């Protein structure tokens, strides 16, 4: 439920009674302050997150505080009360896994006392008679609920537990107002049986100002209780009676949500405490056949030119099968996950090998209260200096809410490749933050050996600054073995208030990454052990360094919406890859020089209908030895509920300093059809015409290609 109308539901007895118990505050003013853990802040109490409270904290109270900033109201879900800040901080750490934004705040003893008194008042008096209208939204004046203002800024002046409006006079028992208050209060208390009784009684009364809301709340109560069929009936009934208006839009959305009811990983409501184990199994299987055929027509030029030749060849014929499995078994404390992903390529062209690539096969366990985790098997790395993929173990443990230690060990893996050397690594890291909800980062050390000698020793750090309208981050990786900077990166993005999106990237890195194993490039063996019989360690490292280039990228760009349909973007990029030196086994290679690219893009959304996306772009490239110009037009549009069509035309022209030229044009189309939400059939086809011309040769390549297959998602 996403209505501010439910703000009124906040009138649980605790809060409702506070208004008339406020006078007791003075008596408590001199008592020492208390501490609570603010778990989350929401605009509506109906959006209350699930609250998996550890057993050790269940003696504490979970309650709402009201935050007011000007005319805006939000609600803070809190766990209290704690006599010392240390106790509260300890509780917050236990809850950090479930409530990342949780923080400790200081409250007055009055808040606790008021809550207790309100609880006593609630149990002592009949709800309908005792409950005054909710402080934020009196039932007789339901605000436009789709116009909920944004949540107040974190710095908003909170006025905890102090209703802005004076309490209204208690409604008469059995009146629409009293029933509405009773029903809303029951929703907040998660007593849906009582809520359904109250709203049903209200709907039995003659038509009144609250009938419409009662119909919606009744449906909501059934939905929260898990009675989807009855909720659907009540929502449909609502739409029959009230087809127009913002509220009807919302009800349609809720009805659609019911229609798309999930099979797993349901976003939990507070009314559905997930105390038992639950499981989820998903994945997919796909098979696609790829075929490509090239016809090359070559015409040598010049006085002694040979005859024209034509070559036609099948350059691609492969069946690619992908299997993907993801299984979870979890409760509120433990989470077990098994992941398997494999890609098999069956090549039908003689001389081209068929390969199987096991991308991922790991078991992952999380113990949420301690923010601890363990992952074992073939898994992705790419963090804290770890290789992109490895066989091994990765452990993590949250020592505090802002510090998480990691330990990894294993062997790097390149699916489809193997070398006659043994690489092993270990790494340790500390993930830090968030601090002030903005800053985070990590520091790490990493050491890898190959055949018993040092392969890569690195230390690194990463700093990140995030806010809702942008981010900036920087990464440094320094190799202590080679005594050389391996990676230095800075990147950022900012969306300005006028909706222009800026982004920038500065990246320097050794490519490939510095490590002794690079010495096998060009060597007659892939065994470092065998190379050590010929070269010393220092010589191998020098060879590794000689074949390692330096890559540098500077990129900047912006995108700005110019109309409701079109946005324009401009990007500029400069890249450079340095030369490499010759080794006894591998020749030197020249550097790329500076390659400068300027691109402008026009992005149209809804050019032809509400569902299409069209992108046109033009790029100019300038390099030391050539200039190029590229144009591209792509469009994508779903048709009906099952079809999606994609189309693209790409053109590229290049003029080299030696006078030769290249022109290429390639139209491609793709159609996909989805059947019963689980099977997708896809067909893609295209052609590519390339024309190269020099003083000695004119060559035309005509290539056509297609792919066809299916994907089964389960």
């Amino acid at each position, binding site marked *: 439920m*996403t209505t501010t109308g439910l703000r009124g539901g906040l009138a649980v007895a605790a809060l409702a009674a506070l208004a008339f118990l406020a006078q007791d505050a003075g008596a408590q003013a001199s008592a020492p302050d208390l501490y609570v853990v603010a778990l*989350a802040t929401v*605009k509506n109490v109906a*959006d209350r*997150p699930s609250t998996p409270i550890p057993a050790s904290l269940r003696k504490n109270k979970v309650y709402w505080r009201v935050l007011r900033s000007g005319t805006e109201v939000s609600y803070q879900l809190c766990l209290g009360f704690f006599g010392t800040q240390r106790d509260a901080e300890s509780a917050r750490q236990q809850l950090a896994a479930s409530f990342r934004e949780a923080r400790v705040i200081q409250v007055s003893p009055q808040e606790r006392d008021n809550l207790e008194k309100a609880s006593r008042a609630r149990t002592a008096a009949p709800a309908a008679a005792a409950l005054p209208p909710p402080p934020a939204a009196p039932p007789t004046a339901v605000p436009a609920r789709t*116009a909920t203002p944004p*949540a107040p800024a974190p710095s908003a002046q909170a006025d905890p537990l102090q209703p802005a409006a004076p309490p209204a006079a208690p409604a008469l028992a059995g009146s629409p107002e009293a029933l509405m208050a009773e029903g809303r209060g029951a929703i907040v208390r998660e007593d849906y049986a009582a809520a359904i009784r109250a709203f049903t009684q209200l709907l039995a009364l003659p038509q009144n100002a609250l009938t419409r809301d009662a119909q919606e709340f009744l449906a909501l109560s059934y939905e929260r209780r898990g009675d989807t069929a009855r909720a659907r009936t009540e929502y449909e009934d609502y739409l029959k009676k009230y087809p127009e208006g913002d509220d009807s839009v919302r009800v*349609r959305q809720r009805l659609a*949500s019911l229609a*798309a009811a*999930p099979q797993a*990983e*349901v*976003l939990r409501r507070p009314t559905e405490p997930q105390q038992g184990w639950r499981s989820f199994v998903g994945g*997919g299987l*796909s098979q*696609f056949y*790829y075929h490509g055929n090239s016809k090359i027509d070559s015409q040598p030029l010049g006085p002694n030119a040979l005859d024209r030749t034509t070559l036609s060849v099948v350059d691609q014929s492969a069946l690619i099968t992908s299997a993907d499995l*993801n299984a979870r078994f979890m409760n509120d404390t433990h989470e077990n996950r098994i992941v398997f*992903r494999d890609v098999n390529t069956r090549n039908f062209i003689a001389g081209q090998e068929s390969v199987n690539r096991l*991308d991922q096969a790991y078991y992952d366990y999380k113990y949420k209260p301690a923010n601890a985790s363990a992952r074992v098997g073939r898994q*992705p790395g*790419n963090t804290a200096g770890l290789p*992109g*993929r490895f066989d091994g173990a990765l452990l993590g443990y949250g020592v505090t809410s802002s510090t998480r230690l990691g330990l990894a060990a294993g062997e*790097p893996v*390149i699916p*489809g*490749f193997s*070398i006659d050397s043994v690489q092993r690594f270990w790494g340790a890291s500390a993930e830090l933050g968030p601090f002030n909800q903005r800053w*985070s980062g990590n520091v790490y050390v990493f050491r890898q050996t190959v055949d018993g000698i040092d392969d890569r020793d690195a230390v690194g750090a990463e700093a*990140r600054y995030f806010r*809702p309208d942008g981010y900036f*981050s920087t990464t440094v990786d320094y190799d202590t073995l080679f005594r050389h900077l391996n990676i230095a990166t800075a990147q950022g993005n900012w969306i300005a208030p006028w909706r222009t*999106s800026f982004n920038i*990237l500065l990246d320097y*890195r050794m*490519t*490939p*990454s510095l490590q002794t194993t690079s010495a096998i490039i*060009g060597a007659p063996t*892939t065994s470092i052990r065998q190379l050590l019989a010929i070269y010393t360690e220092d010589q191998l490292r020098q060879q590794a360094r000689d074949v390692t280039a330096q890559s540098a990228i500077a990129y900047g*760009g912006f*995108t700005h919406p110019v109309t409701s349909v079109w*946005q324009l973007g401009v990007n500029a990029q400069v*890249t450079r890859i340095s030369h490499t030196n010759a080794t006894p086994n*591998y020749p030197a290679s020249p550097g790329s020089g500076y390659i400068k690219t300027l691109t402008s893009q026009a*992005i149209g*959304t*809804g050019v032809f209908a*509400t*569902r*299409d*996306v069209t992108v046109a772009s033009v790029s100019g490239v300038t390099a030391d030895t050539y200039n190029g110009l590229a144009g591209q037009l792509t469009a*994508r549009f*779903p048709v009906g509920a099952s079809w*999606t069509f994609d189309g693209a035309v790409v053109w590229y022209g290049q003029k080299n300093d030696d006078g030769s030229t290249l022109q290429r044009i390639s139209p491609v189309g793709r159609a996909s059809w989805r059947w019963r939400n689980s099977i997708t059939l896809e067909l893609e086809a295209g052609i590519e015409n390339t024309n190269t011309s020099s003083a000695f040769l004119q060559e035309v390549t005509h290539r056509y290609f297609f*792919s066809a297959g299916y*994907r089964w*998602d389960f």
Partner: protein
Amino acid sequence: MDDLALAAAFVVALLGTTSAAAAVIDEIAVERGEAAAPRVRVKLTAPVHYIRDYASRNGELVNVQLEALAPLAPGEPPFPDEVKRFPGSGPIPPFTVRISLDPLCEPVLNPVCILIQYERPVRSRVRLGEDRRSLLLDFPTTPDENKHSPNTDKKK
């Protein structure tokens, strides 16, 4: 010479600092976002740089253009696209994520082009996760005209 080329290709792949296979999506998980709004985190297997995102007018299609800081599939052809399906959860409709590493999909060095196709129109917002290796799909519960993916219910 073939061995030399093979060894060179191998090492480029081996030492590419990122995953050698184009398995870009690690996991799709449901979270609570700001103000407890529904959120999906698409976890990636490597850190990326955000370039831009744009959506169809009804929010059904969302394109996200990213750049990997190092090749995600060095030495491999840019096919096939990686596709994963999310079954939906509560107010979040089912959707399909398609990832293309086709060098033509964005004029940067290591493009990662993501197409998210929802099964029905939805208002969503995309941004890069604070870890730089995930995409956050937020489904705000209140209208915001500044969102990239407007709600069809608000359109003509």
